[in-house]
């Protein structure tokens, strides 16, 4: 039987959420990470309480993997509905592995290769015939291990790590199911096995494999965040769950509050007490926090605010992805409340953006937003293990007594630190931290001159950050016809779209903004080197035809060549969708205002 050398593969597992397909997807991702391979996963979870159709897609490869893949090379269908729903996501000549006990595929459809296996029956047989089909997922893992010649010993280790604390029976059954899948004579139905080529990535640097929420959480801990509060909401909850169990190890605590208002208030109490604290949420939760976040800007206290964006508005699409909270993050509170907004571009960046957020929050004593999203939160990637010792912050409150001339709200020193309670005030005057407009000492005042000065001060310190941001990095052509601009989780698909376009001879570059408020300086020079600028976002084009970032960029640069590609289907961008968007915009470069009515 022949063995085909492959560089990468996309496997889509389609079943119901209780079948444990996330578990085997996770195993495959972790295995890839341990094998110095690159991996990105993609999953859908039904928002129903238990059960419902669900998929887990794994894109693993020996080269750089940038997206979860538009289409699958392999589809594993556990049920008839899985087959019917997902067969069109399979590439032509792709392989359908289906459970003959539950699926009857249309074998006349000659686009695909069919591999029928009695997944349910063989699993029951393998684990002792109790009639329960628990373990089907592990059977399939065994089968895939054989087909792709994966490392058996490493996978058995992963299974042991996962199941050893669930009892001997569970572990034994899992291993039995795995072995049954692995020894299944797949060559009866499949005419070849596969072998990944040697990974180019194997530079000896150990990799870690995790999802975006885990990376964010670990970034916060590395950055010295020890306190926080939150309220459960999908897809933010896994961050608060992990902080709740991790922070006590470092002497801190995470509080589950009675609601979102209390959560942000608790976190601000911790900030007032002298800590860098964190709160976060998704969708409606952020709307509820906005008043208190305005107070944080006014009172000038540091805070990290995480928004795992999901489909909105209102309860919206709780388990889908969208980037429609950018304006809210920047402008969401009443009054002029300028604040720092950052967005990570992939799972690895979730870790590093948390470090950055902590640095800025401390330095400027102000809230910092991290805009992640559902897709980043739940997808798994492997990345180089960070140099922890280099980044690790051991937080200490500064109790240095304050001299008599201390003022909590100096106008000329915009980065003045808050004097945490416990600090002795040598002049005998203790400060009040306040949400009323105040003078430099913190006394309430409605003096018009002072209000203007204080508003300007709070704005200028955020502007000052722009001067220390790294110069934006352009991928692809540094000048040319088209510049693609994105933010957040669209980074991978945009990069792939640029790679594809350049193969077709396009002069095209990609700019990804990690700093959204303030934006880095000097973008106008970048823009001037391209004929057209397309901003790609997962939000609505709005009343005037531009997505949220596009609107901001147009407002700042008044550059009519900045235009918008948006979508609101609640799913991550496919490469094809981006390429189509570019095609349709580039051909009508002149009619800039075509989408504006009556123009």
């Amino acid at each position, binding site marked *: 039987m022949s063995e085909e050398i492959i560089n990468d593969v996309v496997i889509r597992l389609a079943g119901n959420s209780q079948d444990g397909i996330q578990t085997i997807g996770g195993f495959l991702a972790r295995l890839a990470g341990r094998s110095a391979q690159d991996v990105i996963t993609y999953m859908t979870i039904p928002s129903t309480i238990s059960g419902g159709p669900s998929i887990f897609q794994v894109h693993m490869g020996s080269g750089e993997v940038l997206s979860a893949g538009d289409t699958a090379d392999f589809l594993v269908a556990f049920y008839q509905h899985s087959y019917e729903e997902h067969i069109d996501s399979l590439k032509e000549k792709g392989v359908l592995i289906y459970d003959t006990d539950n699926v009857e595929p249309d074998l006349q459809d000659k686009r695909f290769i069919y591999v029928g296996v009695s997944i349910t029956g063989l699993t029951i047989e393998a684990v002792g015939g109790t009639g329960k089909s628990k373990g089907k997922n592990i059977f399939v893992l065994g089968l895939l291990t054989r087909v792709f010649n994966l490392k058996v010993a490493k996978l058995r280790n992963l299974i042991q790590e996962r199941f050893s604390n669930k009892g001997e029976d569970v572990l034994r059954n899992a291993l039995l199911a795995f072995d049954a899948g692995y020894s299944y004579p797949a060559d009866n139905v499949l005419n070849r096995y596969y072998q990944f080529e040697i990974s180019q990535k194997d530079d000896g640097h150990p990799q870690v494999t995790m999802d975006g929420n885990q990376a964010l959480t670990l970034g916060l801990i*590395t950055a010295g965040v020890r306190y926080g509060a939150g309220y459960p909401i999908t897809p933010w909850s896994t961050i608060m769950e992990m902080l709740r169990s991790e922070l006590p190890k470092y002497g801190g605590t995470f509080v589950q509050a009675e609601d979102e208002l*209390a959560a942000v208030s608790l976190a601000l109490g911790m900030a007032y007490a002298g800590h860098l604290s964190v709160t976060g949420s998704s969708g409606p939760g952020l709307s509820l926090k906005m008043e208190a976040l305005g107070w944080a800007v006014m009172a000038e206290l540091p805070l990290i605010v995480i928004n795992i964006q999901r489909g909105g508005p209102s309860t919206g699409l709780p388990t889908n992805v969208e980037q429609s909270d950018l304006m809210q993050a920047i402008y969401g509170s009443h009054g002029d409340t300028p604040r720092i907004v950052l967005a990570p571009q992939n799972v690895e960046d979730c870790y590093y953006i948390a470090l950055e957020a902590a640095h800025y929050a401390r330095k400027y004593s102000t809230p910092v937003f991290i805009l992640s999203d559902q897709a980043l939160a739940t997808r798994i990637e492997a990345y180089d293990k960070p140099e922890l010792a280099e980044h690790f912050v051991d937080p200490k409150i500064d109790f240095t007594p304050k001299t008599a001339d201390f003022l909590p709200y100096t106008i000329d020193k915009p980065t003045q630190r808050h004097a945490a*309670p416990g600090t002795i005030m040598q002049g005998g*005057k203790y400060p009040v931290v*306040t949400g009323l407009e105040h003078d430099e000492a913190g006394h*309430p005042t409605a003096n018009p001159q002072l209000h203007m000065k204080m508003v300007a001060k709070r704005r200028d310190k955020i502007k000052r950050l722009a001067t220390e941001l790294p110069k934006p990095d352009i991928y692809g052509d540094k000048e040319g016809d088209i510049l693609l601009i994105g933010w957040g989780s669209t980074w991978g698909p945009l990069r792939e779209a640029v790679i594809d376009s350049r193969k077709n001879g396009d002069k095209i570059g990609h700019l990804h903004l990690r700093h959204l408020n303030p934006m880095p300086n000097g973008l106008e020079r970048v823009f001037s080197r391209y004929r057209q600028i397309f901003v790609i976002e997962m939000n609505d084009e709005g009343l005037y035809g531009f997505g949220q970032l596009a609107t901001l960029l147009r407002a700042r640069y008044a550059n009519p060549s900045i235009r918008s590609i948006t979508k609101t289907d609640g799913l991550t961008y496919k490469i094809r969708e981006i390429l189509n968007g570019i095609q349709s915009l580039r051909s009508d470069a002149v009619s800039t205002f075509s989408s504006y009515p009556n123009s």
Partner: protein
Amino acid sequence: MTKSNTNTIAPSKALTRGDLRADHPTWCPGCGDFAVLASYYKTLEKLQLPHENIVTLAGIGCSSRFPYFVNTHGGHFIHGRAVPFASGVSLSRDDLHVFVFGGDGDGFSIGGNHLEHGARKNINLTYVIMDNFVYGLTKKQTSPTSPIGFKSKTDPFGAVDRPINPMKKLVYSGATFVARTHATQVKHMGEMYERAIAHKGFSVIEILSECVEFYPGAFDDSTPRKGGEFRIIEEKTNDGTPEDEKRHDVTDEAAAYKLASLEWPGLFGVFYEKDRPSKNELESNIVQRAREKNNGLSDLEILEKTFSLLA
């Protein structure tokens, strides 16, 4: 919790009332809150708490202006959220003495749910609610404690909504120290302050504090110099006498509830007091257990260990 969170620099001199005075209060002349403020100064002077470790916090309302009139580390937060804010301070800084001041609107209306959860969790802090039965800062609207029939700008025909009973609310929510006093009864108010501060856990004092501008005479029924009667709860002394049988057992929740059901103006004093571990203690225990489990490892080593599980 960890050592680094605690200021260990020793205070230099005795704390006096003068040290504690700050801006002159902006309250209307004759407002009951002046007495509540004076009593706070006096109590702090008596207890000699380290000046820099006293924290005076509030939400929004007339009485919530308190922090500006007290020279301690202060925080003026947003409407209704003073309790969770103060909880964040308390839970992350066991070395501080956390005081929250506010009114009936802040505490029982917009912040009503937070009051219940602060009580349930038994956060270690002292909360003083100046109850005047009216919204004063916004100039006479109905409050959650306004009696039925009270005429205000939002109830020109008289209030129709049943007022909440603060004592009942606090007792059922799980507050571990619940007391009621009166701004004109300086001695009693001082005692309540001291007992509330001595209590470990969520201690609340409701102080009837007259709004002379928008609800004058509201508390005459319990003001002796206005012809009313200030009746104090007699607490059990466990002296074995037959009279003691009739006295109030402050640890008896049902009895507290019964006392809270008495007709207006009711009784004053401690309705309920119980020892129950505070969330501060319980969280400390969790930290201690987690630390023991990772015995000897530095924080960085603990983080390395977590990463190794994700390799």
